[in-house]
């Protein structure tokens, strides 16, 4: 027993010893907190983000190369980050909040967490409809919530609008993820703006009654369900299709090869789009750097990265989309609503979804 203990503690010491050395190395290069606030305050920008893409990190690295400013990233669930920002207030060491839903950005603004960006570069990079009215946040990338259909069972001529999905002819044929996910909440929130509360409720009711199964899984799972003939139609985000096509896993490639992509509402109100965007926090102690980062992320150079590596649509109109898949989808008509509405209508959307039993 004693021997075993000895071996164990020796091993532990060894492991922790090695690791300690390593962390000591990293901390040595890092300025201590007190120094940070006093001297080298202009060398970094602290970004709170709910996005977790390798491609984002690549952009931050490029930013550092260009400007010498380190982007300190704190990842987390968007809501948890917002609570922290709200409670921490002015004392918090946070400069930017970056998230993948316009509704959440609008909520952050409503809570008074943002300050005005005030950058002409950002204004010229990003069209007005993708920026907050009061310049509190700006969109950086865009994704569309589209219809995916079974190539085997559905003639694309049958497809037209989101509204049509409530039609009885689709009974037992539609899948989508649970209402707990913000992409679906924002979809419904946009409908409240476009079609009004009552009509949206009716539509949601019809849609839910057409579900092939209880909502579950993520967007890729919905595509797989269509590929498996469990349903004919799925409502998913556009960039997952790109990711599945380029996936390393043969199963995902096989699944996505069995489905077609359809951008709904082209003749009417336009396809629902949502954005990832960021705003500068009131607590920001490195505002200049924060502005620089936003200017960089909205620049042509960075925007090309978003579309080529992550299948997101650029918001900067000067970017020529080089990605083959996005190019093949071509131009499409987008829902023209002000995206702040998604935040305002979020609660109503949730109530509707609860009422009609969208789980």
């Amino acid at each position, binding site marked *: 027993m004693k021997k075993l203990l000895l071996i*164990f503690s020796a091993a532990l010491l060894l492991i922790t010893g090695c690791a300690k050395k390593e962390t000591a190395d990293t901390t040595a290069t890092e300025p201590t907190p007190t120094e940070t606030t006093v001297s080298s305050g202009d060398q970094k920008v602290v970004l709170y983000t709910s996005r*977790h*893409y390798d491609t984002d990190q690549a952009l931050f690295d490029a930013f550092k190369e260009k400007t010498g400013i380190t982007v300190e990233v704190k990842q987390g*669930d968007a809501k948890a980050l917002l609570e*922290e920002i709200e409670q*921490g207030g002015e004392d918090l060491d946070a400069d930017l909040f970056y998230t993948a839903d316009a509704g959440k950005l609008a909520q952050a603004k409503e809570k008074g967490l943002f300050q005005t960006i005030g950058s002409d570069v950002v204004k010229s990079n990003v069209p007005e409809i993708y920026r907050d009215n009061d310049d509190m946040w700006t969109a950086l990338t865009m994704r569309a919530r589209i219809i995916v259909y079974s190539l085997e069972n559905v003639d694309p001529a049958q497809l037209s609008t989101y509204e049509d999905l409530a039609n009885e002819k689709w009974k037992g044929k539609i899948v989508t993820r649970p209402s707990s996910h913000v992409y679906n909440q924002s979809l419904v929130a946009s409908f409240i703006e476009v079609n009004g509360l009552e009509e949206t409720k009716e539509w949601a009711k019809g849609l839910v009654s057409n579900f092939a199964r209880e909502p579950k899984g993520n967007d890729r799972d919905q595509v797989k369900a269509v590929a498996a003939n469990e349903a004919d139609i799925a409502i998913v985000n556009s960039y997952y299709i790109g990711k599945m096509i380029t996936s390393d896993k043969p*199963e995902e490639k096989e699944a996505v090869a069995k489905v077609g992509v359809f951008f709904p509402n082209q003749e009417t109100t336009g396809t629902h789009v949502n954005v990832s965007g960021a705003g500068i926090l009131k607590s920001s102690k490195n505002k200049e750097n924060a502005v620089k980062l936003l200017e960089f992320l909205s620049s042509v150079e960075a925007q090309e990265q978003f579309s080529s590596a992550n299948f997101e649509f650029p918001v900067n109109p000067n970017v020529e989309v080089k990605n083959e898949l996005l190019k093949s989808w071509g131009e499409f008509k987008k829902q023209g609503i002000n995206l702040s509405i998604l935040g305002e209508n979020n*609660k109503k959307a*949730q109530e509707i979804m609860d009422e009609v039993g969208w789980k």
Partner: protein
Amino acid sequence: MRLDGNSTQVLFLLMKKYSIIHIIGIVALILTCIPIIYLLLQAFRPTETVLSNQLLIAYIRNTIIMILVVGFSAGFLGLTLAWIISFYDFPFRRFFKVVLALPLAIPPYIAAVSYSDFMYVNGLFPRLLGTFGITKHFDIMNIHGAIFIYSITLYPYVYIACLSFFKYTSASFVENARVLKANWVKLFSKVGVPLARLPLVAGLTLVIMELVSDFGVIDYYGVQGFSTGIYKIWHNYSDFYGAIRLSAILLCIIFAVVYIESFLRRRLRYFTTSKSKSIKLIRVKNARYLLIYFTLTLIITFIIPLIQLVYNGIYAYEKIWNIKLLQVTLNTVYYTSIASFICVGISFVIANYVKGKKGIFAKTISKLATMGYSIPGVLVGLSVMFTFFDVDKLLVPLYRFIGIKQKVLVLSTSVFVFMFAYVVRFMAVSFNNINAGYKKINPNLFRASATLKQSTSQTFWRVDFPLMLPTLLMSFLLVFLEILKELPITLMLKPYKLETLTGFVHTYTHNEQYSEASIYSLVIILLGIITVSLIMLFREKKYVKS
């Protein structure tokens, strides 16, 4: 002068009455409770959201169903496996003894994703069936699937608890029953089940607490449980305090159940005064069915998720398998070890303080301190963080005094709070284990030490510590396993720059890149396997001496 003399005397008396080790215990106990009390207090804030009764009833109903079925199946699996291994001899017994605890290394969410992949269209299982000419796939993303996943990933809590209990406390009962010629059915039902009450309760408490605080599995499987309600109120209705209120209600229910159970158990004593002897194992003559049961359990609970992860990982391994992975792994081992060490240390002083106390206060507050395990990790993290935001604001004059300029959030952004949050979240795991360890030690030993004029602190180091060392190591490993798998607190409070394994798993699952996530999951599981094997090896050795 006189006054000084008096106060020194008072201090001396106090020190005599409350030894340092006890004072540390009390402070640690109160500190651990503060975030939980903070959370309970927040629940009284006015909130506007009310979930419809219909929804709430559905959530509660589903959670109760899951608790009952998972409780039964995890209890059944854990108890029967531990019982057979403890008292019967059959081929590969020692092998199974260790490997049956391994599912503990797999985070439930990872198991959930792997299993649904494995069973669904194009998955490995339907393809296997396909070679036999059967075209069938299985959609396990529903409440049955969730129950299945929780059962197979959580049963080792019961298994491990029962195993150690049977080994050291019930040998004499079983031998007596054997002398009385009880057959195996009677032995199990009349001796095994009643005897196993303590480890069953201890194991199942952890199972249920982990089940109710989990959101990952049920969200992915589209099951509407109580934690769905907590998240819905918070995420969808933006009502943070409403979410806290729901958690607080849940916490109160769990607290009440745990409290009542311990009250009902108050007269039971399990330590044996005689030196415990190892029991003679009965050789099973026809072990075929037994081996089938054990092998099937192993395959279903462990091998299948592992195969699926390895299969996924193959596609990303070139991308991920590099020096950075090693670095992240070492980092993870490093901070997890330190955090586990702190957690066990704090639990030990608290358990030492609570041990001799008859009063309601110590008992109640120590139970309260373990409640962090039944609250979703993200809420524990936030309440610890917010508690220390307030503490920091109080301490500003002190910070200025010692020369920290400008900065206000000193403590709350420090490693201290990062570590402390784990203590609040996983106190149940370490404290319960240490407390159970204390129950196995004959209290006369502590009395003897007191008779020999040893102070409480001296007793602590000379009697408690050496006697409890194996238990402490065990707790360390158990907590290590938990922190290794933990996500929300790690994400929320870790220092910027610290890259962790769970962080990467989160990143990649969030992007639905399961191949990449699988590699990191496999490293977590590998570390977990090492940890669990160590746990089981310690069990092998005979360490309790009374």
